[in-house]
């Protein structure tokens, strides 16, 4: 079966730094792919290339077998690629609804924004996801870290993503909220959405991801099926950059 997303030989440099160096990776429909690696390994940079934040220096991206050009975040969103950024990318001076529709505001006649429609839609999405916020009209600056994360997640889900990128989505969450995100990931994967999940928590990612990809110094160490490896072996991949002795795919 053709993969949902295929990255081929992606290279991205910043000045002299090879943030992403010749990485090839694929993601199937409904698959949860865990992306692991040290700080500065290039995980965020790789997914930002896919999200359209900056174009790759070289390499190809295929969606369902078709080569695509992703030059901007709009391109990525048009292709159904939604991203929860590590920094969340929320505008603190605006309320939750405004943030949920950031850049995709609904407008009525005369080009004025349709606040009521947006609020209703936001309420629905949050309800569907069982994500609760105290008030939709309070500014994001007054929300807790977990509540902010809820807004960022709702935004990514709202527009019917085919591919969902989550860059450390549970970093600011307590154990209970983390469980909710885990349930959400499982649910979305059942719906056929391909998910790339970046996390530093190996336990979590072992539970959620069916496949793991490990990066080190901008390069891909390898990708393995979660079922085929132990956590220690994955740790070795992260730290030493070596594939496990036993041959796996």
């Amino acid at each position, binding site marked *: 079966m053709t993969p949902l997303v295929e990255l081929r030989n992606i290279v991205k440099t910043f000045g002299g730094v090879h943030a992403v160096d010749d990485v090839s990776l694929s993601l199937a429909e409904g698959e949860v792919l865990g992306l692991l690696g040290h700080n500065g390994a290039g995980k965020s940079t790789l997914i930002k290339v896919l999200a359209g934040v900056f174009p790759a220096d070289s390499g190809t991206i295929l969606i369902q077998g078709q080569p695509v050009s992703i030059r901007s975040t709009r391109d990525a969103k048009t292709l159904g690629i939604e991203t929860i950024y590590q920094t969340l990318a*929320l*505008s603190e001076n605006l309320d939750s609804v405004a943030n949920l529709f950031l850049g995709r505001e609904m407008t009525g006649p005369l*080009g004025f924004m349709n606040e009521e429609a947006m609020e209703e839609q936001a309420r629905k999405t949050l309800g569907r996801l069982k994500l609760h916020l105290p008030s939709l009209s309070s500014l994001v600056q007054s929300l807790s870290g977990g509540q902010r994360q809820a807004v960022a997640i709702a935004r990514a889900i709202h527009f019917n993503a085919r591919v969902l990128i989550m860059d450390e989505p549970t970093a600011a969450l307590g154990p209970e909220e983390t469980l909710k995100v885990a349930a959400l990931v499982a649910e979305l994967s059942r719906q056929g959405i391909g998910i790339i999940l970046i996390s530093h928590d190996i336990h979590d990612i072992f539970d959620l991801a069916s496949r793991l990809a490990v990066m080190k110094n901008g390069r891909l160490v390898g990708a393995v099926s979660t079922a085929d490896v132990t956590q220690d072996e994955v740790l070795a991949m992260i730290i030493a950059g070596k594939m496990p002795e036993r041959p796996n795919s």
Partner: protein
Amino acid sequence: MTEAAKPSPKSFDWAQFVRSQLRNIAPLITLIALFVFFSLASKSFLTLDNFVNILAQVSLTSIIAVGLTFVILTGEIDLSVAAVANAIGIVMAFFTLQPDYANIQNVPVPGLVAVVFALAACGALGLITAFGVTRIGIPSFIMTLAMMQIAAGVSAMLVRGQIAYSFPMIIQTLGSGKFMGLRWLIVVAVVTLLIAHLVLTYTRFGRYIYMTGGNRDAAEYSGVNVKFIIGSVMVISAMLSGFSGMLGVAYFGSAQQNQFDTFLLDAIAAVVVGGTSLFGGRGGIGNTIIGLLVLGVLNNGLDHVNIDSFLKILIRGLILLIALIVNVYAQKMRDSSATTE
């Protein structure tokens, strides 16, 4: 993911409210305090005529301040507003037939054409600023400082130390005429403020201005063309400054160099005193209106209480300093109250 079931606070937290609203409350209190003070200190201050006077006095500033509000909301600054106003007033005069005694070598064209030329000129100046800031990457602070000098140069070149007295009919009417007993200038200012408020509050463009000032990365990641937004506000600022300059020369009855110098500080002061954050993303036209009134009441009131005119300048400086302190302080309070949660 966070439950809504947190116990709600027993009573309304006033301290918290005041802290979060400091940037809106402080200017309003200042306005009321000044108003009460001058009403008590002078008999002539508290009259309807004088109130209309104050409005007329701040009208020109308010048109400039609207553009500046847009710019400051994106987290940028425009120091060229007054110089651009001056230059565009002069450009318009340059294209208007002047009386013989004006002694200016100019190029008279029909009035409406002169207006169009003047508008095109401020659009061009705005585009140059926008280009410098967004394409070349010059910080707006420096770029508009350069534009200030360029605009001053344009003014100097066109009038060469002389004074122009004639302006196109329509501008003459809007700048110094009356409409049912009310100065057109006030009407124009109010309409400008209203439109700006609608744009900022209810349109995507307005929201993107707030986003750009609030979190530029987030705006970019959401597909907002941040450079376009910043470029646009620079052009809008130049256009409104130019428009104000055109009305201004008609209001003053003459166009000459260095005529708008005080408008730079006044416009910035109005925006900042009103509570719009110097860091961008917070504030708006409502704040600017309060700021304009504070300035208008202060300037006008000081005239009524017979204060040494040199002291007047100092007092204005001190008020501005206090406003700056409150502005920065409000931001710090917000930052710390956001992180101590």
